[in-house]
């Protein structure tokens, strides 16, 4: 549980850091392992929620630590593959003001425009 590598997989796509959250439950139990990855962000960092089935307020709290860490450095943070349910929850607490939801193609377009190699599909 406490091994960050099993909970977050870090990838670089051009100059963007993509942090794929591998646990399906972002909650009090997984929070500390997730939090460790907040020390390893790029100027543009994307949190990928594709595997995330559940987020509660303990989970929101750890996500906000990424926001806080990014703001300190003047970095930007986005999220991707957020389920409709979690889009609703993020809107309720206005998470999206601090961690906007972007689309896969917008991320790809940004990376392309910045001259990085898109991953072959």
């Amino acid at each position, binding site marked *: 549980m406490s091994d960050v590598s099993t909970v977050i997989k870090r990838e670089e796509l051009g100059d963007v850091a993509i942090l794929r959250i591998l646990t399906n439950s972002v909650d009090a139990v997984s929070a500390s392992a997730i939090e460790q990855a907040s020390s390893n962000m790029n100027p543009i960092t994307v949190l990928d929620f594709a595997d995330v089935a559940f987020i*509660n*307020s303990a989970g*929101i709290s750890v996500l906000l630590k990424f926001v806080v860490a990014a703001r300190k450095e003047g970095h930007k943070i986005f999220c991707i593959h957020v389920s409709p349910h979690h889009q609703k929850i993020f809107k309720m607490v206005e998470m999206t003001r601090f961690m906007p939801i972007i689309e896969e193609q917008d991320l790809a377009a940004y990376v392309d425009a910045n001259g990085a190699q898109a991953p072959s599909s």
Partner: protein
Amino acid sequence: MNRIHLHIPSDLLFERVVRASAAELGTTMGFSDERIEDLKLAVSEAVTNAIEHGNSGKRTASVEVIFSLDQDKLEIEIIDSGPGVQSFNTDRRVVEEDNLEAGMLRGFGMYLISELVDQYEVQSSSEGTCLKLRIFRPNKPS
């Protein structure tokens, strides 16, 4: 009426067990997938509070959860043996710049619960707190 009882130690690990049970009972009730997500989150918040604020994480103090299923609704009681609470603040609570800077990253639980369930009730005394959540069936079985 059907009643399912669950007792867990005050360890957040076991909040996941309550949540899984809630999801299964939501399916049994015929709730939509989205409604089941609402149910899981509300139950998760309530159990987290019972463990953290009610029983102050004393593992030996258990949290009791009673699911009552009837024709028109699922009712969930989450009971701790903590010091109780005077009043719950269920005002809308959103992420704010100032709070971020001050490191205040919590406090969404009661607001989320109040929005996600159809009805809730609190009974609290110096013996403990019981939070009762209700979600209604979309339409009565014929």
